């Protein structure tokens, strides 16, 4: 009698790393760093119609110390930049960053004395979501890309953002 027959499908075998990744992936705690228009679309993403909780990421935290996914939604300007950096530093490892929308990713169409041309000047970014503002589906897609990345990292693969 083989092991497989003995437990008759009641037991799954895997590696610890992958179990942890599975858990992480399905219980992301996002912190929305919402400064502008994209924040309103994030409200749409968490509300009943699009319902981010289908992806296990509905537990929105406003304290960086309790979150593992930073979603930057909106324009970051020079006055804001040091604060964003400090908030990122306050998050515990492991942590991921989504840069949602044109402004956060590249400054958008605000090329001026006040706006940072992309938050990657300040902090590392895992996923860039295009759009001005990105639709809720696009934000959800960004969350799914993070989930893929978590699994891939556990399997030892390097994934490009």
């Amino acid at each position, binding site marked *: 009698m083989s092991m497989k027959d003995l437990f008759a499908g009641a037991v799954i075998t895997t590696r610890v790393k992958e179990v942890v990744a599975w858990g992480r992936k399905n219980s992301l705690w996002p912190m929305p760093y919402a400064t502008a228009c994209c924040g309103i679309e994030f409200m749409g993403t968490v509300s009943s119609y699009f319902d981010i909780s289908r992806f296990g990421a509905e537990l929105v935290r406003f304290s960086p110390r309790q979150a593992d996914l930073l979603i930057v939604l909106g324009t970051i300007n020079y006055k804001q930049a040091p604060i964003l950096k400090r908030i990122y530093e306050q998050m515990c490892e492991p942590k991921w960053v989504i840069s949602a929308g044109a402004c956060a990713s590249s400054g958008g169409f*605000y090329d001026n004395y006040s706006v940072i041309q992309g938050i990657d000047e300040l902090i590392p970014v895992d996923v860039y979501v295009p759009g001005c503002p990105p639709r809720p589906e696009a934000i959800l897609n960004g969350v799914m890309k993070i989930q893929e990345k978590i699994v891939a990292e556990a399997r030892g693969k390097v994934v490009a953002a």
Partner: protein
Amino acid sequence: MKEMALNIGPSHPATHGALRFFVELDGETIKKSNVEIGYLHRAFEKHSEVSTWTQVIPYTDRLNYCSSMMNNVGYCRAVETLLGVEIPERARFIRVIVCELSRIMDHLICLGAAAVDLGGLSNFWYFFNVREAIYDFTEKLCGARLTTNYTRIGGVMRDLTPDFADGIRKVLKDLGSAIRDVSRLLERNKIFMDRTQKVGIISKEDAISWGFTGPCLRATGVPHDLRRAEPYYHYDTFDFEIPVGTVGDVYDRLMVRFEEMRQSARIIEQAFRMIPEGPVMVKDPRIALPPKQEVYRNIEGLMNHFMLLMDGIKVPAGEVYSATEAANGELGFYIISDGGGRPYRVRVRPPCFLLTSAFSKMVEGGMIADAVAVLGSLNIIVGELDR
């Protein structure tokens, strides 16, 4: 007792964006407060000086991003005044309809978020469902949910979709039941009343001196509304009421918004009945893009198209101030043209800016927990506040 200083923001769930305030506390009472803004300064006014007249419209979307169509209308109306252009009758009614829809959308967010700050999350879901339903129609209208860029100088971008009127009527019905649900949850709710009544009171005189306009001014009992005082786009022919408050506290400010949504729904209903058929853009090759068949088939159309896109609209030299009643109050655009293809100076008068400047005065002497309620009732939209 020793005084304590507390910092709230700029990244805090109750600041509705990026806003920071410090308070000096004596126990739980606020002794002194100081607001700091500028965390979303995106240089709108500087950008307008280097964009063509048409290119400014998308920037106006991002001023008050909860009701972007109103900003589009406000800006285009100012430029049209300078150009001396009368927009077609149908376009006027379309603008009224989209403006009132935007007002509803804005108030939905404001009331939903204010209730969340006070601990009532379910109201937000009720309201957001209606908002999603309106989004479906704005999306059909112009392709975007939030940043619409719908109006053009000289009219609107395209006509209403055939199913628009019926669809919106249905949405308005849903809105009615959502308002009913939420006002049942809030209006006579003891906890809600305790948290909002006699909180953050501002008197009539103070409100005027601080430059309050819109729902926050009306909550103090001043029935001032630009739709009545300086009617534009046939607002004088619509039958609607201007709700006013009596005390000028948080409760009044929120209740005024509830009633305004009902009135906006009435205006939309009337506009649907009165709207005539016809063009939605002026027929002026110096302002409106020619139809695509002409661009592809004859040289004149092609040239007009090219000139408009490369040089932009030429607006005669002059200065104008034009104000419309936006969701938060008087939204004014002051424009200087030097006769070229780009504005010389665009100044926007954001209603939020003056509301927020009075925030410190309104919370001083109150409890720290009230500060959040006051902030929610002012409906601060940071895009408009910092520009």
